[in-house]
């Protein structure tokens, strides 16, 4: 049995688990059974993917007599698929493990169980599909199932709105993809990926396809300005679903982009790449700024997903720029950075969403301003979330830094590009990415500092208890992965290289030979980084310092009330709130970039009502793009709606006028 058959079988089994859930819904172990099966299957995905990256089973295909009748349903397993299988397998597996524990708290499990495994299966189908129809079918089924999952808590108005916006954007994306595939397939309907691959296209045609792919895959991944659904839908879903959507599904969207733009379309003209780079960089900054301003824990995480997607798109754009100029080594570096970051983001974003889910479970709150002090009540969760926050803030020696480092190395290769425009633009985009990275650190200090540190701001947070072992195990797994990958990035780079090789026909130097797991993307004189040693050095010097201080100086400790510059121990609400923490950045960047407004209502002297500070900050994209569209549709449909209330005579007049019009037309014509 070839790899593709085996993977298909597992995907089919996952899809079939959905209906199974309906039949076994009365059994007490139904949820555990479903999630446990999902763990097993995802584990198999990961294994198959890893085996594929090691070279086993690559290139196997299968055609089933399904889908479009004259070409059937084509499936193919190659290195790119294998890599994303690993993402899906590890992410899906860890999240399913988490769900074993988390799912017990679900009030209406039947709104999750039938869709959850099928969602995983649909994502696998997207990865395997090798013709346009199968691809889009799986893609849209994936959207549909995640939509159903988002609607788990459908009683809430916000959830319904979120789900609506989500599926509408998904529909928009699918239509864009459909148009892109229409162009790729040509007039004769050559929908197979194999047939699309060899065709040469004019640069304009390729650019149109690229734009459509940016719209289609970008809307699913969360590229600005198509990201609006993401901060709505991800928080609304149950947390393991949020984790799956943010950590894994957005990666599947990126897979779609990579598959079409890098694999099917081939090298594009150099002038196509700046748009991608710039979009990516702008998305990154916008996303993280919004994350900085957001009060809702899960929504802030969702915004941070947008940031990371932006980073990845910037890396992909760099790859396109290098590739268009035939700089294979540089392209390989940028592409490796993109794939590496995809992997990393899967790990830490899933971890963070699980953490948010644990917090939600323990306190029932998503509002940062109700949390605080969780590090005392939920020590393990807090520690694991800290690892995730460090990783996502790109702090060495964790994994987030490794991929950002690679990306910056790629940015630094820009002088070799012949086009002056790109030469100037890439470092500028690099600056934006650096800004995003710095803001990410600020945003996660805020999230962690307000949410987990300090004193509890509500009773719910005060009485929080640590979550169950399954959840902790799942988070621990991913946290360990973050550390491990950060410390040993060379192994990951080598594992990715078959993918890079397959897409770009070039790769980074083999990292396995370098001493002490150092990574050297180009040459040692140019740049190198060793996560292991950094970690060892930091750990050693920290321990050394601690040991020395404790050994030779004092080790006495006394607990006392907080000093706070002499103020008495005030109420927990005097702590910095999430809004307060964001205030400096809101004033500095938010006013101009996001249109943030602060209004202060000061009561007159003698009036004892409290002073109020209201902050208005939101996604500028809503007001600039989506609200006008919605308003237009509303106005036009209201105007049109008069046609429903005409008299019969007027309807007849319409018929009559149409007839006259056509007759006149005919008369003029002949």
């Amino acid at each position, binding site marked *: 049995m070839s790899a593709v058959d085996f993977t298909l079988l597992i995907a089919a089994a996952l899809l079939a688990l959905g209906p199974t859930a309906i039949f076994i819904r009365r059994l007490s172990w139904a949820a555990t059974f479903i999630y446990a099966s999902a763990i097993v299957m995802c584990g198999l995905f990961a294994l198959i993917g890893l085996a594929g990256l090691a070279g086993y089973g690559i290139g196997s295909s299968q055609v089933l*007599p*399904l*889908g*479009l*009748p*004259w070409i059937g349903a084509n499936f193919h397993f190659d290195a790119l698929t294998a890599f994303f299988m690993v993402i899906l397998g590890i992410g899906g597996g860890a999240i399913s493990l988490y769900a074993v524990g988390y799912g017990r708290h679900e009030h209406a499990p039947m709104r999750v169980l039938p869709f959850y495994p099928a969602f995983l299966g649909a994502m696998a189908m997207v990865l395997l599909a090798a013709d*346009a*129809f199968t691809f*889009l*079918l799986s893609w*849209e*089924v994936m959207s*549909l199932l995640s939509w159903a999952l988002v*609607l788990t808590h*459908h*009683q809430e*108005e916000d959830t*319904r709105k979120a*789900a*609506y916006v989500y*599926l*509408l954007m998904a*529909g*928009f994306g699918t*239509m864009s993809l*459909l*148009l892109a*595939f*229409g*162009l790729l*397939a*040509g*007039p004769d*309907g050559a*929908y197979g990926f194999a047939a699309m691959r060899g065709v040469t296209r004019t640069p304009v045609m390729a650019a149109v396809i690229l734009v459509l792919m940016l719209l289609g895959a970008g809307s699913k991944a969360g590229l600005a300005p198509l990201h609006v659904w993401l901060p709505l839908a991800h928080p609304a879903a149950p947390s393991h679903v949020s984790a799956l959507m943010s950590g894994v599904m957005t990666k599947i969207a990126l897979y779609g982009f990579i598959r079409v733009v890098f694999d099917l379309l081939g090298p594009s003209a150099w002038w196509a790449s700046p748009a991608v780079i710039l979009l990516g960089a702008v998305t990154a900054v916008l996303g993280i700024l919004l994350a900085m301003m957001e009060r809702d824990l899960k929504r802030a995480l969702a915004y941070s997903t947008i940031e990371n997607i932006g980073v990845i798109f910037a890396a992909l754009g760099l790859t396109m720029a290098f590739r268009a100029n035939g700089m294979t080594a540089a392209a390989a570096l940028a592409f490796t950075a993109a794939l590496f970051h995809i992997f990393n983001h899967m790990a830490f974003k899933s971890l963070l969403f699980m953490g948010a889910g644990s917090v939600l479970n323990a306190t029932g709150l998503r509002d940062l301003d109700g949390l605080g002090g969780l590090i005392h009540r939920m020590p393990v969760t807090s520690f694991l979330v800290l690892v995730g926050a460090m990783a996502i803030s790109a702090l060495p020696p964790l994994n987030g830094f490794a991929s950002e480092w690679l990306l910056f190395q790629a940015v630094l290769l820009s002088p070799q590009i012949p086009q002056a425009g790109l030469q100037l633009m890439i470092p500028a985009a690099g600056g934006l990415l650096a800004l995003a990275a710095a803001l990410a650190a600020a945003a996660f200090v805020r999230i962690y500092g307000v949410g987990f540190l300090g004193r509890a701001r509500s009773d719910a947070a005060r009485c929080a208890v640590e979550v169950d072992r399954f959840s902790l195990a799942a988070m621990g797994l991913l946290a360990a992965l973050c550390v491990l990958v950060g410390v040993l990035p060379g192994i990951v780079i080598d594992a990715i290289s078959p993918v890079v090789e397959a897409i770009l026909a070039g790769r980074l130097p083999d990292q396995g030979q370098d001493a002490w797991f150092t990574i050297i993307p180009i040459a040692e004189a140019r740049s190198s980084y060793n996560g292991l040693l950094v970690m060892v050095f930091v750990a050693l010097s920290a321990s050394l310092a601690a040991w020395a201080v404790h050994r030779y100086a004092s080790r006495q400790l006394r607990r006392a009330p907080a000093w706070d510059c002499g103020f008495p121990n005030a109420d927990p609400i005097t702590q910095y709130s999430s809004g307060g923490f964001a205030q400096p950045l809101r004033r500095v960047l938010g006013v101009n970039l996001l249109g943030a407004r602060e209004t202060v209502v000061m009561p007159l002297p003698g009036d004892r009502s409290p002073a109020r500070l209201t902050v208005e900050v939101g996604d500028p994209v809503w007001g600039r793009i989506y609200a006008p569209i919605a308003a237009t*549709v*509303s106005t*036009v*449909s*209201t105007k*049109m*709606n008069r*046609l*429903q209330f*005409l008299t*019969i005579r007027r*309807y*007849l007049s*319409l*018929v009559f006028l*149409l*007839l006259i019009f*056509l*007759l006149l037309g*005919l008369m003029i*014509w*002949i």
Partner: protein
Amino acid sequence: MALFSNPVQLILAVPMISAAVLAILPGYKLSSRINVLACLVTFLAAFSLFFIAPPAPGTYLLIDELNIVFIVLNTFVGFTASTFSASYIAHELETGRLTPIYLRFYHAMYQVMMFGMNLALTTNNIGLMWVAVEIATLSTVLMVGIYRTHEALEAAWKYFILGSVGIALALFGTILVYLSAQPVLGEGPPAMIWTNLQANAARFDPALLNLAFIFLLLGYGTKVGLAPLHAWLPDAHAEGPTPISAVLSGLLLNVALYAVLRFKMLMSANPGALDPGPMMIAMGLVSLIFAALMLYRRRDIKRLFAYSSIEHMGIIVFAFGIGGPLANFAGLLHMVMHSLTKSAIFFSVGHIAQIKGTQKISEIRGLTQSHPVLGWGLAAGVLAIAGMPPFGVFMSEFLVVSTTFDRQPILALLLVLGLLLAFGALLLRLTGFIFGEPTGSLKPSEASYVPLIAHMSLVLMAGVYLPGPMVAWFQAVARLLG
């Protein structure tokens, strides 16, 4: 029974005889069973056409690859709708919306309508076809007005007037076609036989054909429900009994479409005649976008789905207007899928409206919680009709959009715009229907879900797997349509 050795005769005779029987038979229970039985027999007879070699085209009857699709679909949906009607109509009697005498009338008319539609599909004579469409129209007019409320009468009246004008225009077109054929084929009946017309179309006077097609497109187009000729459609769907809404959307529109297609083939066969494509594309697009926008302001659930029918007829006409093997295939597939899906939607809507006692969109909430099967069934139907996979409509929309974009990018973009607008509206309403806290009556539905599930299973199956013979046959038809 030598007379009925031919299944085609059976298809026509069974509804006619049972109409007569039902007209005199008291007692609604028996009537509804006979109704179902008659529809079943008709369907089986139609289905047997797959296996028996179809009879050679005669003066009156014609079975070819094109209309066999329509006949089988027609009788099948007619059958499922009759089973749905059996469970639906009992409830109407209980609530006193209908009296037994009206029920008798209803069942008889149901069969008359089936007869009209079957005749329109099987006849080989353009005049007879016109008559048959007229019969079907008039019988549905009576059914739409059967509740005799203000709204129902108004809807029926509107339907009647607009339908009559349309049918008159179609008659004029038919006469013109005859006139153009007459110099070639000679006077009298041969000049009205489809097979003759089709074979000799190349020699007809193209100018006359052009004029004829305008009248035919407007005439039968009124029946298809193309904007701006659609006005009767939403009200007729909304105010009639729900089985009739299902039949109207699922069948009658197809019958009219069939007529348009036949005449389009005639036009295509004549080299000098205008290309009917652009006209159909334009009307299709107008219907699609117009109906999509209208969806946003609907307050009545059945009217909502009636507008959705207009929208889909727009897509189908658009696809046939684009032409070519892929688009024609897509058009046919879309038509079949739309019939099945839309009637399934009306089945569930019928039950919902009966449970809730209202058709107001704002009063239907949280169905997945209170009535899981109905709620999710409706969800499946609406998502399917909105073009979501893994349902069959997705495949046809995939083909239409992807083939159009390469050839006519602007048209494809307009098409996509319309599809998205409609998707947005349907999804908005669906979210309201099936999610949130349930409102209104929560009593369980005792109705049978079999027709609903049967239709949705077929649509689901078609979305992922089309049987080989069916594909071959669709492709043959697509080639036939040019």
